[in-house]
């Protein structure tokens, strides 16, 4: 069990990031900003994972020859987040591609404007 108390401040950061990300996605009419919001949101999760791996006085989990050298921070979340970042990047790419397509079709990347444009379709 990882000690929650010691990591409480990172926990607040996570909450803040998630909140900001969600807020941007909800409130911004700009698609690109929404995507940024999504990235912020994901980042919050990344931070959450990474911070969960933290161990007081832990070292980077590189096992020295002959073993030992601990305590280490947990390597597993870091590995996971590496993967997640890759996924996130691909998603961002696809999303931006879609925004480009939308801009080509409708000449706007603003959701409200887009609604008006599409209402005339």
């Amino acid at each position, binding site marked *: 069990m990882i000690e929650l108390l010691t990591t409480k401040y990172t926990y607040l950061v996570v909450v803040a990031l998630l909140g900001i990300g*969600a807020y941007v*996605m*909800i*409130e911004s009419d700009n698609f690109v900003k*929404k995507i940024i919001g999504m990235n912020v949101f994901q980042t919050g999760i990344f931070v959450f994972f990474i911070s969960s791996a933290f161990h007081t006085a832990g070292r980077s989990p590189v096992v020295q020859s002959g073993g030992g050298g601990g305590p280490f921070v947990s390597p597993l979340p870091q590995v996971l987040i590496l993967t997640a970042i890759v996924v996130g990047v691909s998603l961002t790419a696809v999303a931006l591609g879609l925004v480009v397509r939308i801009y080509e079709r409708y000449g706007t990347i603003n*959701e409200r404007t887009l*609604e008006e444009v599409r209402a005339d379709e």
Partner: protein
Amino acid sequence: MAASPLTALPPAVLVLAAALVTALAGRRLGHLVAGLTTGLVTVWVWVAPAGTHLTGTLFGFDAVFFQIDPFSRIVGLVFAFIATAAIIYSWATDASERQTAYALTYVGSSLGAVFAGDWLTMVVWWELMAVTSTILVWDYGGKAVRAGFRYAVLHGIGGSLVLGAIAWHYAAVGSFLFSAAPGGMVGTIPQVLAAVGIGVNVGFIGLHAWLPDTYPRPHIAASVFLCVYTTKTGVYAMYRAFPDGHLMIAYMGGAMAVFGAGAALLQNDMRRLLSYHIQSQVGYMVAGIGIGSALAQAGAFGHVFNHILYKSLLFMTAGAVLYQTGEENLKYLGGLARKMPVTAAAFTIAALSIAGFPGFNGFVSKGIVISASHYTFVKGPLVVGEFYTLELLLLLGGVGTFLSFIKFGYYAFLHGPYEGDPVTSAPRPQQAAMVLVAALCVFYGVFDGALFGLLPFDVTDEAVVHHVYHTYTVPHVVEGLALAAAGVVGFAVLKKPLSKIGRVPDVDAGYNPLVFYGTRALVHGVTETYAAVDRAAVGLADRAAAVRADPSLLSRFRADIGGSIFILMLVLGGVLAWLGIV
């Protein structure tokens, strides 16, 4: 009993088969076949020994399809005989072979009912009789159709009550056979149902209005048939239901005798007048059944026999008048005695018979019933000298009968000269039928022993009846003459006021609108309620469809990206809260 020549072809089946032939054979041949068949059946009933019967199962129940005992024999005999006379009369009055065929089905089903040996068989024929008589009425078209419908509905109700009675009876007894319950209907409910159900047929007061409503409307020959079978089958059934009599029924009979005669007095339509008299006369029979003694029952059945003779004769004469003049209102008739002497003579005989004048058959049988009401029945609340309550009622009915037939005869045959188109005498065949029946009326009046021989109980045998009956005793003849005198005097007094009376409403003027408007209100209430519910449901569906038809109504609720994510966050929050984490 194994099939024998006598049981191979029950009379009802024979007559129904004849009806089919009649309908197809053409008028002349058809009537010939019809007349021969009923004549044959008359003989058959005459010669078949008592106890002849045919058993079997009907719809899975033990049944006696027909049986001959003294009661069914006398009724069946006169039924078959009068059918023959009526067929001759039909042929003489231009009745179509189709109508006569209908009439034969009616005759056949009545015979079936009378000869039935169990309640189930009887009620089958009973219902068929209602149907066939309805069709006989309908056949005339015009006003007869609606009247026939009222007749059908009323008899449907009556038939239903009888069905109910029999079902209850079966629940108690476990068999439909008459022989299984010698005391008739078992239990109070079946008795009430049977009395009321059969009461429709015999014309209990209050249930009688179909008689004057229906019988004046169809063809004149049809009326001759109609006046015979329905009511008399009812009397017979009443005996089967109450072989030991019943106080209330006896008094009802007395009341009917008075009421019918009184109402008849007020009528101007010939056949309507006669119809009320059916009720009155049937009252004597019902009284006889209700008294329940051997003497009374003998009287009742004797009266059935005699009544059929003279009442059919009366309808024949009224029909003959109508046939010649085209007029059925006594107000516009008169003086026909000269033009139609045979008819007038036949009428006179019939009128004297029905009124119970000494020397005519009505005198004999009515006398038995009155005698029974005196000697074998309770005194009742009203006693005047030697006369007891029921007896008084029956005598009073006799006065009324005299009165009204004096009226009929006076206005039809005597009063003034006839002012309509020239009138000739009735056609020979009509006359023949009338004379035949009239002769029997006189015959059975004079030779009362011939009648006694037919009765189910020997009224002259002390061992059989409580009080031996003699037709021609001085007090009895005096009684008959006194009634006649009372009638003549009464008519002289009442002639003026009677002539001022128009059409008098009967009970149906009350219940017809009640039933009709009541039904209408019920029908409207029920259908409108359902329609309202249906409309509401359909309206709801339509409104849903309207939402689809107008997508803009919904598009407001369509979440955009931000909205969607907001909802997601809300749900997340909700779930976490539910799980008790946040």
